[in-house]
């Protein structure tokens, strides 16, 4: 092995120091991935701006920080987290509370929801659903060039497992509230696996909140399998403080005639980097990738989307919008890859940003690689200010400038929110966005977890 740079070395050391503890609680199958993964991580290292997909995002502030340890939860951590779980009200959703991305393993490590859906700890599921895990785990997270995905495969000690059997239609969404809380600065890696068998229909909403002011760095990987003819929507609401770094890698594998959507709503966070990979792995599949980013101060939000059209007659659509204030920066890189035999592909992409100040900055880059000839693809990007004409129009009806600006920003953001299918959820998101734009958001008012 060639000499590692100092930063990669540090994470390799973290691996060596902790791998015994991590492996003890994991299944042999999950452990079987670790050695190759850390080897690949050592080759690739922590991504820098030289990595094409991280061109506009520096991870330095967070990865140069000396996190003393990686977070491996023990039962007593959850006891502490329970204190924050004061009042869980059932808001037309099936609610689950996580701590730093981990399913509480004090009581039931795996629990059954209506319709035979199972949700719980990945490690626990590896016992009960070992065949399913072996069929799906590690099969979709295959971004070979991103060292962070490999670091996660090597070190993640646990995460959330969701299993949706065939033909299950769940009207209420599943809501996961992830509390980010610790007494010390932590580096936190969890690994999720979601299996949706055929003909099912499920919506999942995941909300991240930081509850303590420590420095956090999260590097999470989620693998999602969407079976034939199923519908699956995942909505992420990211609301973390300026000292929190959040890196998510989501891999959605779709079978034929399935419809899947991902919606990353970034309301707050120091550094946010979402990479969302859509693999259209069967004819007639449809994939939708949405994102909304609202950033201010020195925040940075980067969305990387990779849509892979591997089969004919699939449809994909990307819509990412954002408002950047103060010195905030943003990046969007949307890749559409159409394989040679993926004829009849429809693939669209749009990214629009509003910069409220001269210092805010947005980098946007479409990336189309098309090897089939019968396809329809389009992409468009705009970066601009609030429309002065629209502002005047609203003012001329008696609406003051501040309110008029809010209405315009809200209207701009609503374009993304309106794609949420569940009406109650859509309204809640609209409210959250409005609060955020007004600068009134600390905790999401409609959150099922009422803290303090």
């Amino acid at each position, binding site marked *: 092995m060639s000499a590692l740079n100092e930063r990669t070395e540090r994470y390799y050391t973290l691996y060596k120091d902790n791998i015994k503890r991590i492996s003890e609680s994991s299944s042999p199958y999950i452990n079987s991935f670790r050695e190759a993964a850390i080897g690949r991580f050592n080759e690739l290292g922590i991504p820098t701006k030289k990595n094409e997909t991280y061109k506009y995002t520096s991870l330095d502030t967070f990865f140069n920080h000396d996190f003393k340890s990686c977070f491996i939860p023990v039962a007593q951590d959850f006891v502490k987290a329970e204190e924050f779980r004061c009042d869980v009200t059932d808001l037309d959703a099936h609610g689950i509370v996580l701590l730093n991305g981990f399913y509480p393993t004090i009581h039931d490590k795996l629990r059954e929801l209506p319709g035979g859906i199972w949700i719980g700890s990945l490690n626990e599921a590896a016992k009960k659903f070992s065949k399913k895990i072996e069929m799906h785990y590690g099969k979709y997270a295959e971004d070979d060039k991103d060292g962070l995905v490999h670091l996660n495969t090597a070190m993640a000690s646990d995460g959330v497992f969701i299993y949706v059997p065939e033909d299950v239609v769940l009207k209420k969404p599943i809501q996961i509230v992830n509390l980010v809380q610790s007494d010390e600065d932590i580096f936190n890696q969890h690994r999720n696996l979601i299996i949706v068998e055929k003909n099912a229909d499920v919506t999942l909403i995941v909300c991240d909140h930081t509850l303590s002011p420590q420095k956090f760095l999260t590097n999470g990987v989620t693998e999602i399998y969407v079976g034939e003819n199923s519908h699956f929507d995942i909505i992420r609401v990211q609301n973390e403080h300026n000292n929190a770094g959040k890196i998510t890698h989501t891999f959605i594998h779709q079978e034929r005639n399935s419809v899947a959507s991902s919606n990353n709503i970034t309301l707050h966070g120091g550094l946010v980097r979402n990479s969302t990979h859509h693999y259209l792995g069967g004819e007639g599949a449809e994939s939708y990738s949405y994102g909304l980013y609202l950033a201010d101060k020195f925040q940075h939000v980067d969305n990387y989307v990779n849509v892979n059209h591997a089969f004919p007659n699939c449809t994909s659509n990307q819509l990412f919008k954002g408002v950047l204030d103060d010195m905030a920066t943003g990046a969007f890189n949307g890749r559409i890859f159409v394989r040679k035999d993926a004829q009849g592909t429809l693939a669209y992409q749009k990214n629009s940003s509003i910069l409220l100040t001269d210092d805010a900055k947005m980098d946007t880059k479409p990336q189309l690689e098309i090897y089939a000839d019968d396809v329809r693809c389009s992409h468009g990007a705009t970066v601009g200010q609030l*429309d002065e004409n*629209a502002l005047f*129009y*609203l003012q*001329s009806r*008696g609406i003051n400038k501040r309110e008029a600006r809010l209405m315009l920003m809200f209207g701009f953001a609503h*374009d993304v929110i309106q794609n949420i299918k569940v009406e109650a959820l859509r309204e809640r998101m609209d409210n959250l966005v409005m609060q955020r734009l007004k600068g009134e958001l600390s905790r999401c008012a409609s959150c099922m977890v009422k803290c303090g």
Partner: protein
Amino acid sequence: MLAIENLKVEIDGKKILKGISLEVKAGEIHAIMGPNGSGKSTLAAVLAGREFAMVTEGTVTYMGKNLLDMPPEERSKEGIFLGFQYPIEIPGVSMVNFMKTAVNEHRKHKGLEPLSASDFLKMMRDKKELVEIDSKLANRSVNEGFSGGEKKKNEIFQMAMLEPELAILDETDSGLDIDALRIVANGVNRIKRPDTSAIVITHYQRLLDFIVPDVVHVLYDGRIVKTAGKELAHELEKKGYDWIKKEVDKNNLS
């Protein structure tokens, strides 16, 4: 109600209005006509508070107050309404939310409580009927995807909701077929009360068949060059603007 005195306005250093004086009394309807580029729309924009136009000289007094000191929203709440020549599309902002916010801002200004949701919806319904606007339009985003005629009707609908003291209609008739024109004009007539006033800016006399003015002004090259009764509109329709241009240019030479 409104007194404009020697108003001079520049846009990007170019003199657009070169000394306009005009007085509109309560209850009066004034028509401002004139060829393209004479400064009609700039005058409307300045009265509504558009910032791109810079007032270099002159005063505008509205109800005894200095109008030029007020931000656009203040002017609106004080009773001035501008009907836009090109209404703006605002995706994502619903007509209901837009109008509810506007109406309640006006009510707050008058020291009134905000309207309840049901009272507001009833008001929307009544005013929609008044201006014969398709009720589906109210459920959509502001002007988004509206046809030219629908946009103009929507302007009159907003005017009906806000009940202004002084309406300034900037070429509200342009691009309308005769049926839409009649609906728009009827709307304006129904909204008008005996003590409210209007400034109607138009190219064409045909709107003035429906909204009958008390006074007609001709604006040319940044000045009001002719003021007369409603018969002037007919004369302009027949003879065009060339004779006025000639008259003005001749005077300028001599």
